[in-house]
């Protein structure tokens, strides 16, 4: 166990702190919600890339900073920005999911054409994977791309597509080889959202906001050169992306920040003149959560160590989405509960606290528990890949 950092990393930390101190005033204010990046945010993103605090390992040829992968430096950047309350680089699906996929599977032309503008936020992307009939069993997706000349002609429907209402492009899974077994009939296709035949309908959720959309395709024509990887190889290509998504969804530092907000809330809020922190029952719930937050923060250090050593952390990695998302929701739940009747106020009103953030987070986190593989699916993954337990036998088709 060695939690010290060598001189190289201490120097790097100092450099990051110095950058934040000099540039924090220029940082854009986060507005929350899923919106297109503003000019301010794109500016900030470019500044971060220039210093290696975003798109750090994306090669210079494609507009990135071009550093060798170094999980410790990435960790230090995350810690220092979070501590200073400075916004980290954009975390859109295009940047976190598409770019790594293109780097691995894209053609030279695709990389040059898309990566530079994606990492700066100039081209916002959306992910077209899930369909009404293809959720946990994603490979059964039915959106079809038939070949006509040098084009795919796409018909079908996607759902849960966040960012589709402003995205310029979609990376999409389409069934192009209907005669092949389901996993081998899918292609990974890049689709401009302004192509005729695409209709985007916002999908309102329980939070009252539209975090997602439905996207309908009617004879949408896309050049065949927009495919990433070979025809029928889309499932393998997408699996690179899914791996990144599962890693991206739960961030123990977020749990730590939310817990700090909860502590402040419990110290400020009073019932009959007594702070909620003085209430032994609520305080006990807080302390239980604190232990879980610490455990996840430390579990993350374990994952960090594994990635420095280029090892797979195994079970500690596989559990992180399941545990992290439920932990976040439990923190939000206590935030609601300590507010009592005021905790169920929503959207507006003079007694509303933090613009309704606690009930919003509580509901939003349920979305996170569901998205990217529900907790039930996560438990299958943990049991099968982590504990080598057998898969459920396939049910014979009726």
């Amino acid at each position, binding site marked *: *166990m060695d939690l010290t950092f060598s001189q190289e990393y201490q120097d790097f930390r100092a450099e990051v702190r110095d950058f934040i101190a000099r540039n924090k005033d220029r940082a854009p204010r986060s507005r929350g919600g899923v919106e297109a990046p503003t000019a301010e945010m794109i500016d900030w993103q470019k500044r971060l890339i220039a210093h290696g605090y975003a798109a750090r390992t994306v090669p210079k040829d494609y507009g990135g900073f071009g550093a060798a992968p170094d999980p410790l430096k990435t960790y230090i950047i995350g810690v220092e920005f979070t501590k200073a309350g400075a916004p980290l680089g954009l975390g859109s699906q295009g940047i976190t999911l598409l770019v790594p996929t293109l780097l691995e599977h894209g053609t030279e032309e695709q990389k040059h054409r898309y990566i530079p503008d994606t990492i700066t936020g100039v081209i916002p992307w959306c992910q077209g994977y899930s369909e009404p009939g293809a959720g946990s069993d994603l490979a059964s997706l039915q959106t079809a791309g038939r070949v006509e000349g040098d084009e795919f002609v796409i018909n079908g429907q996607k759902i849960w597509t966040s960012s589709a209402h402003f995205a310029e492009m979609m990376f999409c899974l389409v069934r192009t080889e209907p005669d092949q077994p389901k996993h081998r009939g899918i292609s990974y296709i890049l689709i401009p959202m302004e192509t005729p035949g695409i209709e985007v309908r916002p999908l309102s959720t329980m939070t009252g906001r539209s975090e997602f959309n439905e996207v309908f395709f009617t004879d949408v024509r896309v050049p065949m050169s927009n495919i990433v990887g070979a025809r029928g190889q889309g499932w393998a290509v997408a699996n690179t992306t899914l791996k990144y998504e599962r890693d991206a969804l739960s961030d123990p530092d977020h749990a730590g920040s939310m817990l700090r907000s909860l502590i402040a809330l419990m110290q400020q809020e009073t019932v009959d003149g007594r702070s909620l922190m003085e209430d032994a029952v609520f305080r006990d719930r807080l302390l239980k959560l*604190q232990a879980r937050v610490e455990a996840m923060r430390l*579990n993350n250090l374990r994952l960090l160590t594994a990635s420095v050593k280029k090892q797979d952390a195994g*079970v500690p990695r596989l559990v992180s989405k399941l545990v992290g998302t439920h932990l976040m929701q439990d923190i939000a739940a206590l935030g609601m509960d300590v507010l009592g009747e005021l905790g169920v106020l929503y959207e507006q009103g003079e007694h509303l606290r933090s613009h309704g953030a606690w009930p919003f987070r509580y509901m939003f986190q349920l979305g996170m528990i569901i998205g990217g593989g529900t907790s039930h699916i996560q*438990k299958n993954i943990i*049991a099968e890949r982590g*504990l080598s*337990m057998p898969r459920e036998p396939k049910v014979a088709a009726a």
Partner: protein
Amino acid sequence: MEFGLSEDQRLLEDSVRRMLEARVPMDVVREAAQGETGFDAAVWAALAELGALGVLIPEEFGGSGLSFFDAMLIAEQLGRVAAPAPFLGTAIMAATALIEGGTDAQKRELLPKIAAGELKVGVAVGEALQARDGAGIRLEAGALNGTALSAVDGLAADAYLVAAGGDTLALVPRDATGLDVTAMTTLDRTRGFAELKLNDVRTNALIGAPGQAADIVRRVINAGRIALAADMLGAEAVMIERAVAYSLERKQFNRPIGSFQAIKHACAEMVADLEPARALVWYAAHAHDNAPDEAAVMACHAKAHLGEIGRSIANNATLAHGGMGFTDLMGLHYWFKRIHVDRALLGGPERLRHEAAVLQGWAA
């Protein structure tokens, strides 16, 4: 920066594990549990020979002078086999008291004996935290009076480390005049617990000055708590491994029950509780040596959290075995009981969380 075991620590863990797996099969646990004291002399001698009992003791006093993290790894391995050995009281708590608060003469006399397995120490510090049934020990005019409950590893002990109030520590030989030792039978028969009655027990073996040893008492308790958390970690890991293994062997409806999602999800939930908790125990052990500001809070959190998930794992791992889990034959109950006793010792989860709140200035 490396959050995890070093190569040396992996080797240490491996050697302790191999020795314990060879020397402490279920039969040995069963036999010890049927005995009077929850002590197995052969296991104890093997631990001494391996250097495990002197893990914390500096080399100049006959130990191996390793870190608390290393001691935690040994405690975890002992929990894995539900070892009938007074390691917690002797090698962790008494050793900590002597190393941190003993005079040079005390260290020279006692630490080599602990390392060699020649001195087993029962520890009665629970009343420094909270007293039940009017228990408590006082030091007045050079004599100890009162009772102490649930003295850890108290049945096979050659001597006792006794806290008088929260700020005085004394070492009392087993044969001291006026000391009466009564067994307290707990769920867990793999270790012994005792009630000590002290009636004008004269002692000149204080550790630290009278009334000045509060810091040492706290360190001893913190050390004990982390070791208990590690013991639970080992016991919980084994219960999960056994549940998974059983579910792959046991067939119903022509398939292993481990292929049913009901069982798979229960196992996934257990391991999702356990693995992050492992990181918490690691850090608590690291902080005990290296981060004095955080050490006490982390010890509270580690033990409280392992106790909370431990109750759930103990129940669900047993449940995954169906009726067999409930039998004596299967032997799962040794870990089930050990986890529950560990959970209660030196402060249960509620008490620990309250202490953690006080330490952070959130409660009076």
